[in-house]
Structure formats: structure tokens, C-alpha cells
């Protein structure tokens, strides 16, 4: 389904989604963009990149799996365990970048494969993604076109909106998308025939504006297979601080840890929770024996790149990188994944 929506009607449409949780990017006091619940108020839709991608809505940093408690019953203690499933009302993320939706589409593969992650899907099934084609690149380090994405890619999106000056061109890409349109049918119009041409031109133009490029991503993925023991990882990780910025703020990174958080030890009461984890932390997948499979920074940088550009490609035939450039922009020491992969390509060539 394809429609147009006048820009002046946009706030009315959001109002019509009153029964939904609506997330939109908002600027905080420090001037950083973040996805927050709209709760009425202004809905500005500049082309921008939030610090945290909308991953946090689908895959929150902390998720309670179950609650447990020891209760004295008739002189004997019994352990009560209660499963906690997310209770989510219909949610819509408005203003998602196409790369962020593409990352959600990759997460769907991870959490929906052989083992279906019920916690993830409880949220995912209720969530619709409304994307805006990036008519200008939201970051100077955008490189989506190098990793099989584009500033107007459709994967993971339910609606794709393209800015045409006074109106948006609205492409519905799923039944969820159609539902969003039918929530305010009267606001949407049938597109005039010439509009399609305009959209095509805008999309083509947007691709040209991407400044950064990672050449030959597929051949690099192939080459990485023989580079596990390369000294390159040592050299490239010298300046790494071993913080979690590149992974925590990555829209497609999804490693997690599960811990029991004890609230009270006697009588025992607590929760089992899942929290984000990252291959960049020194205790990531540390064995209880004390053995650490990735003992240094080199091994950790290698893990991040190989997961994204080798292992994931082998399993899903996709890159686990959508080219948003956050890890490049936000790295405090300027480690640049494009530059590191450039060196992989040139290595031994």
C-alpha cells in the first residue's frame, strides 16, 4: 500500500495512535537525541541519529526472567518460582532510521532461530517500526550502502516514509503498517502518479550523499577466515580502552548475561535477570575456572569484528553490521571499523 501524508497532518496521525506506546527521538538537556515515549508534546522529525539505537525498546538492557522466594510453609521452606513475561502494549517506534530497522530484522534472526526467545518476541510482536528514509546522512560516519543496506532500506520496517517537502510518501511494508495507516485513514491520500518518480529520485540522491565507504565487504568476510592469528588485531587494538561503547550502542550487538540478583538472603528472595553484556569487557564469557577465552584487547577487538563480518555471515549470510557508524563516531579513541577492515583487505595483498 502506498499513500501520501501531508506534513501538517503528521501530529494528528500520532494523536490517533493514542492507545499505543509511541516512541520518538527527543533531545535531552545535554543536546543528545534519544528515543523516548512521546506522551503528547512536539514531534520533530529531523534527520538525526540518536545516541542509543531503538534496540533498547525491543531488547532492554535489563529484563526480568523470573522471581524467586523461599517461603516458610509448615516448618519447611519451599522455593517459589514465578515466571515474569513482559507485558507490553502495542508500541510504535516513529522515526527509526532504516539501518536501525534492518538491525531489528537481524535480531529477529538471532532471537527467532532454533530457539525462539519468548522475552524478545513478546515485545517484538507488539512493536511496529516506522522508518524515515535518510534524505541526508544522519552521521558523517554512515556507511550503510557498503554493508548491503541503504538510506531507504525496507527490512524490518512496517512503514517507510520519505520526505517530499510538504508531504511524506508512505510505503506500507507489512500488515502492521497497514494497521497504522488505518488508525487515521482520512489523513492519508492516494499518491499522484508523478510522486513515485520524485521518491525514486530522492532515494537515488540519498545514496549518493553517503560519504564513507567500506569497499569489498564480502571479500573481506571471506578473507577474515584466515586471519584469526594475525598480528593486525594487536596493532589495531593498542588504543582500545576496553569500554562497552562500540557494542552497547550498536543497533545489532545482542550479547547478554544472566544473573540472579538477590534482594534478600534470609529468607531468600530475588530475581533472575538478563542484562546486556559485551565482548569488550574483561570478564566476558570468563569461565568459572578462571580461564578467559579472550584474555586481551586484541582478542576482544577480533571477536567484535569477526562476529559481525565472519561468523554471522557464515550462519545467516548477512553482515551483523548495518553501517550506522555509531561505534566509529562515539569511540573515545577513534577506533574506526572501516579503517580496521580496510587493513584486513590490504593485509598480505
Amino acid at each position, binding site marked *: 500500500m502506498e499513500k501520501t501524508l501531508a506534513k501538517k497532518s503528521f501530529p494528528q496521525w500520532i494523536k490517533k495512535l493514542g492507545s499505543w506506546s509511541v516512541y520518538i527521538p527527543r533531545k*535531552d538537556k*545535554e*543536546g*543528545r537525541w534519544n528515543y523516548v515515549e512521546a506522551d503528547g508534546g512536539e514531534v520533530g522529525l529531523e534527520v538525526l541519529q540518536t*545516541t*542509543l539505537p531503538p534496540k533498547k525498546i525491543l531488547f532492554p*538492557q*535489563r529484563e526480568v526472567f523470573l522471581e524467586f522466594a523461599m517461603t516458610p510453609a509448615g516448618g519447611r521452606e519451599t522455593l517459589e518460582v514465578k515466571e515474569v513475561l513482559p507485558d507490553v502494549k502495542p508500541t510504535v517506534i516513529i522515526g527509526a532510521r532504516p539501518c536501525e530497522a534492518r538491525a531489528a530484522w537481524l535480531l529477529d534472526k538471532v532471537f527467532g532461530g532454533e530457539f525462539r526467545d519468548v522475552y524478545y518476541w513478546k515485545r517484538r510482536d507488539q512493536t511496529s517500526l516506522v522508518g524515515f528514509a535518510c534524505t541526508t546522512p544522519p552521521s*558523517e*560516519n554512515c556507511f550503510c550502502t557498503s554493508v548491503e543496506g541503504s538510506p531507504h532500506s525496507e527490512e524490518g520496517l512496517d512503514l517507510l516514509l520519505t520526505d517530499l517537502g510538504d508531504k511524506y510518501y508512505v510505503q506500507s511494508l507489512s500488515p502492521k503498517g497497514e494497521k497504522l495507516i488505518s488508525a487515521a485513514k482520512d489523513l492519508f491520500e492516494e499518491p499522484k502518479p508523478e510522486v513515485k518518480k520524485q521518491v525514486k529520485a530522492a532515494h537515488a540522491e540519498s545514496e549518493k550523499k553517503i560519504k564513507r565507504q567500506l569497499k569489498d565487504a564480502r571479500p573481506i568476510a571471506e578473507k577474515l577466515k584466515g586471519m584469526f592469528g594475525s598480528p593486525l588485531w594487536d*596493532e589495531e587494538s*593498542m*588504543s582500545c*580502552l*576496553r*569500554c*562497552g*561503547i562500540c557494542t*552497547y*550502542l550498536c543497533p545489532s550487538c545482542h550479547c547478554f*548475561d544472566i*544473573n*540472579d*540478583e538477590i534482594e534478600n538472603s534470609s529468607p531468600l528472595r530475588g530475581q533472575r*535477570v538478563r*542484562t*546486556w*553484556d*559485551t565482548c569488550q*569487557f*574483561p*570478564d566476558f564469557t*570468563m569461565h*568459572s*575456572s*578462571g580461564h578467559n577465552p579472550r*584474555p*586481551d*584487547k586484541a582478542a576482544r577487538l577480533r571477536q567484535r569484528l569477526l562476529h559481525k563480518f565472519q561468523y554471522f555471515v557464515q550462519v545467516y549470510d548477512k553482515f551483523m553490521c548495518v553501517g550506522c557508524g555509531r561505534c*566509529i*563516531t*562515539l*569511540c*573515545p*579513541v*577513534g*577506533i*574506526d571499523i*572501516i*579503517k580496521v577492515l580496510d587493513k584486513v583487505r590490504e593485509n598480505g595483498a
Partner: protein
Amino acid sequence: MANIEDLKEEAKKLLREGKVKYIIGYGAGTNGWPAAPLFIKKHEDVDKLVWNPTCVHNLVRFLVDEKRRKARQKQPDKRPVGIMVKGCDSRAVVVLLQEKFIDRNDVYILGVSCGKTGVVDDAKLSKKMGGKKAKKVEVDAQDRFVVTTEEGTVEAAAEELLAERCLECKANFPVIYDVLSGEKTKRPLDKPFGSLEKIESLSAAERWSFWKEQLDKCIRCYACRSACPMCYCDECVVDSINLAVTADTTADEKAQRIRWVQRSAESSENLIYHLVRAIHLAGRCIDCGECERACPLDIPLRFLNKKLEKEAKELFGYEVGFDSALPALISSFRDEDPQDFIR
């Protein structure tokens, strides 16, 4: 302001003669910020070194890595590493020497003076340039910043773009060095703790709500800890590796190990993490501002450390990182030290 050309000859000589293992300096960044840390092993690469007001990073952090690397090697190369330090960074070297974390022979210090300016603040720079990316930032003869973008150059008074910490700088040239580039001119410093005035004027309730809001943003990426040259503990209290497991360790012992701070990024846990870090930096923080710069969510962490720096100064007359022969604040006492807080 120092001139990098002054240091290049020395750097080449050090590498050519094998006097240092490698040099930690600044080179060109590729991610939109003009400078980035650079590690040079070969004298032919010395020309890649740069020095300009975007050299914000405190490279002393990498001496901690070097020590760890050496500890893992069976036959470690005992030669020193060369390192470029600004005034503030040099004070971090002093603290590491004071605490005997490193030895003076472990480092060859290439000092750079910030002269009458300092380094730029990324947020101020980005605001000034209206989001346009700076390709280059230089200092002119009048100590004004000259910023070059794709669209030309813009000039700005130093005060407009300087990092907050530079406005309160106590050491605009290195306090310890083997070679120095740039002048040893003192800068007037009228309000050494000026940045704290606003927050100190708030009531306890207002401060609580300020910090609650700020710390609730924390995602515990630990960039603040990781960027800090003083956060060198092998096992950090927040990591889950603080249990030595042997063949005799029971499953119960593993399960019951004390976790001081939970992994969940929640108000209580975030507060404990940041307070533990702040307290551990009391009398040690040299105000390089790296924690705050590294924070992807702009939590004003410098306030916490600056406040403790002020306490150390007012209560004990102690200023961090000027004399490596002095005992550290936490490991020394004097009879005249105030005791009225002991009840």
C-alpha cells in the same frame, strides 16, 4: 603552545637507537575528530605525529595497558615507552610514580605545553560550528582558535571553545618530562573550582534529583573507568571476576560470592558504581576530564571528582600530581590534619 616538530627529531632518535620500545603519541583521527592516539614503533612513522588542540586524550591510560602486557610476557622488554603528555596528563604520571605503579625508568616523557590555551571541548566545538565537522583546529599567534571545516575557517576566542577543565587548569605545561616543547608560562587562574559553584549552591534535595536524573542515564559501558589512568585495579569491584576459583571451590561458594554491585543499570547500582569510583579517585584524580569526555551520554562526572579535589585541597592542603616524592594523600597523615569529622 608546543610545536610537534620540536619533538619529532627526539622521537626519531629514540626509536632509531632503540632507547624506547614504542612511542605513544597523537596522530590523525579518521572518525570525524581530528586527533586520535597513535602508537609508533618505527622511526619512519614519526612524521605521523601531530599536536593540536584536538589532542584531548590522556595517553597515560596506555601505561596501565603496557604494565599488564609486560606482566603477561615471560621475558618482557624492559625498555621504557615514550609518551606524549600535556600538563594535566603529566600529573597522572606523577600519581602513578607516587603510587609505585610505574617506575620512572619505565617512561620517557615527551612533554607538550598548552601555552595560554589548551584543548577544545567537542560539544562546544560542534555547537560553534553548527554541527559541521572540524577538519583542523589550530591556535594563532593571538592565542585564538582557528577552526577549519569543509566550508572554510572560523575563528573563536580560546575561552569559547576550551574544555571546562582547561578553564580551571593548574598545569598548562608538564610538571615532569624528559624533553619539553613549548613555553613554561603560567596562566592566571581566578576561580580554581569555579565550575562547582552552581551545583554547590543547590540544596541537598535539588542535588539529589540532579544526580538521580544524570546517573539514571548511565548504561554502565564503563567508558569513564576505562579512560581513566587511575582506574588500574586488576579486578574492579563491579566486575564479576572477583572470586578465585580453585578445584575445591564449591558450587555454593561460587553462587554465594559477594557481588557488591549488580550488573543491572538501575538507579541504586549506578549510584554505587559512580560513588565507589569517585571515592577511589579522591586525592588521585588530576582532572584530565577523560571520564566525562568518554561518556556517551554526557553525564557530568567531572563534578564528582572536582568536588573531592576541592575537599582534599581545603581539608588537607593537598594538590594532586605535582611531586612524585610526596606520599599520596590517602597513605599519609599529619598531626595537624583535621579530625572534627571523627565522632
